[in-house]
């Protein structure tokens, strides 16, 4: 008899302390003692459980429901060992994960049913021969399908969705390089080979637009537009006039795309759209004068999320100051970009580091919060739904799987 059994201990305590009901206590304890000292309902279950099959790993039903998302654990504290967690934001279930190396990136191709992790390794962990690669994963079982060797120059930076991208045609993957000379490696996803490296002096990150076109943002405030041909070679290239005031109100590079257009939000809350050709389009303020006077500013690690219907979500914080652009956001503001109006302000339970929005019939707002959990809200009404805890040492980013 195990006298540490909590039920029994509780009973003994009750018996001693509740003298006015001691008879009832004795009765209850007697029943528990009998239950713990005799086989339980063996007669009801005459057959034992069968032996389990061995050596089985789960696989996943594909294509995934639109409620699935990937959370990027940057691994801050042990950078060479980072990870991506696959979760179902509807059920709150953890579905599986992908290990990753130093300064990893994430991309997905639903049409190919593949996910792509960019990563850097050294042959002896933190020393030895360097390998830069994109590892290809099968969405069905999260197993590695291939490793695409890269030039040893992929950019090492804190998680950033602009560090890599897949062109709109699905043919090429683009990998931003920084040595600190800047360039782009072009991967043919059919052959899984690097087919080109494009020098991009002064220009960084990649923003795919239509077909095999993309643009980069440049240190002089301009955009560099590049169009690839079917073999991944540069078909056309042009640079816009400078349109970003980097010194006084820079556009955050952490942006979102709607249709063919990219939406960038500045440190002070001005929205700038950029066309598929890398040319500036509209610019308008997300703030009223009153809100501006109260110091409301965009904030977070990745502070925008979008829906193809034109809705844009932006993480915001009050009492902004020089350098507050990476502070967690206490609210998420929802805008209708076609009408250039705000629809609502969503107050968060826990401040946000990064946001994204699922593409379900009722989209969910996915929030990596400052406590390291993923909070799920109704993206339109802002009603809190559930949380998924314990997603690594430093979850900094969330990706819907579009």
């Amino acid at each position: 008899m195990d006298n540490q059994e909590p039920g029994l201990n509780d009973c003994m305590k009750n018996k001693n302390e509740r003298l006015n009901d001691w008879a009832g206590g004795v009765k209850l304890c007697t029943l528990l003692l009998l239950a713990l000292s005799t086989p339980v309902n063996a007669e009801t279950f005459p057959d034992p459980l069968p032996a389990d099959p061995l050596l089985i790993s789960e696989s996943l039903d594909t294509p995934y429901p639109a409620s699935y998302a990937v959370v990027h654990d940057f691994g801050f504290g042990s950078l060479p060992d980072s990870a991506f967690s696959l979760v179902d934001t509807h059920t709150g279930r953890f579905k599986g994960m992908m290990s990753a190396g130093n300064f990893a990136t994430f991309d997905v191709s639903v049409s190919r049913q593949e996910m792509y992790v960019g990563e850097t390794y050294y042959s002896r962990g933190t020393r030895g021969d360097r390998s830069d690669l994109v590892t290809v994963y099968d969405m069905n079982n999260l197993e590695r399908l291939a490793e695409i060797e890269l030039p040893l120059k992929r950019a090492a930076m804190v998680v950033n969705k602009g560090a890599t991208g897949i062109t709109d045609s699905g043919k090429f993957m683009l990998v931003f390089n920084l040595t600190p000379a800047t360039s782009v490696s072009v991967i043919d996803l059919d052959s899984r080979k690097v087919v080109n490296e494009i020098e991009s002096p002064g220009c960084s990150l990649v923003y795919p637009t239509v077909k095999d076109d993309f643009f980069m943002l440049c240190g002089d405030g301009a955009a560099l537009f590049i169009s690839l041909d079917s073999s991944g070679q540069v078909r056309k290239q042009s640079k816009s006039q400078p349109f970003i005031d980097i010194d006084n109100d820079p556009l955050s590079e952490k942006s979102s795309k709607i249709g063919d257009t990219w939406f960038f939000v500045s440190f002070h809350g001005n929205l700038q759209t950029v066309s598929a050709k890398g040319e500036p389009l509209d610019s308008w303020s997300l703030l009223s004068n009153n809100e501006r006077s109260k110091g409301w500013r965009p904030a977070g690690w990745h502070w925008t999320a979008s829906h193809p219907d034109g809705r844009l979500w932006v993480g915001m914080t009050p009492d902004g100051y020089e350098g507050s652009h990476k502070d967690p956001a206490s609210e998420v503001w929802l805008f209708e970009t076609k009408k250039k109006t705000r629809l609502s302000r969503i107050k968060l339970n826990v401040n946000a580091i990064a946001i994204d929005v699922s593409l379900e019939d009722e989209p969910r707002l996915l929030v990596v919060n400052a406590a390291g959990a993923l909070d799920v809200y109704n993206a339109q009404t802002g009603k809190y739904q559930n949380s998924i805890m314990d997603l690594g040492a430093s979850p900094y980013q969330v990706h819907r799987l579009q």
Partner: protein
Amino acid sequence: MDWLDKVTQQTARNIAHRTSRRSFFAKFGGLLLGTAALPLLPVARASTGGGESRVPAQSTGNIQDPGDPSLCDYWRYCAIDGYLCSCCGGTQNTCPPGTEMSPLTWIGTCRNPVDGRNYIISYNDCCGKSDCGRCLCNRNEGDKPIYRPQANNDIDWCLGTETNIYNCSTAVILGVATE
């Protein structure tokens, strides 16, 4: 990389004595190599930036260089982003034993509260061992997006070193900024 170290340091010191930060970047932005800084999220700053210290107190021993280099509010750290080397076996301007200081850094300008001067600070990363994990500090005054890399602290500036494995960040005085 000794030659690169020497060239970079001497060039930076010479320029720093003569120019403001902005003109410095304007002239040398394409080359200027920058700092370190890994990002710590404000979450981390909240735990290190003004609250109680989790490490023994330190001092530079120089009243003209005030503050505790193991704390995030030390004056030189106005644009730092990473683990403080002062808590990792190094100091505010030296790397921990067995790590390698990156010759490529980005530059911030911080005001010394005692002598009232603006100093040009080079945020060199220390590289070659995994994250120190102590005294995380993230301050983003003057931080710009990655497309202006020489002014961005999201980038791992362990460049020009044997590996790009990040350990911690220093804050080295290059000289007085002259407007």
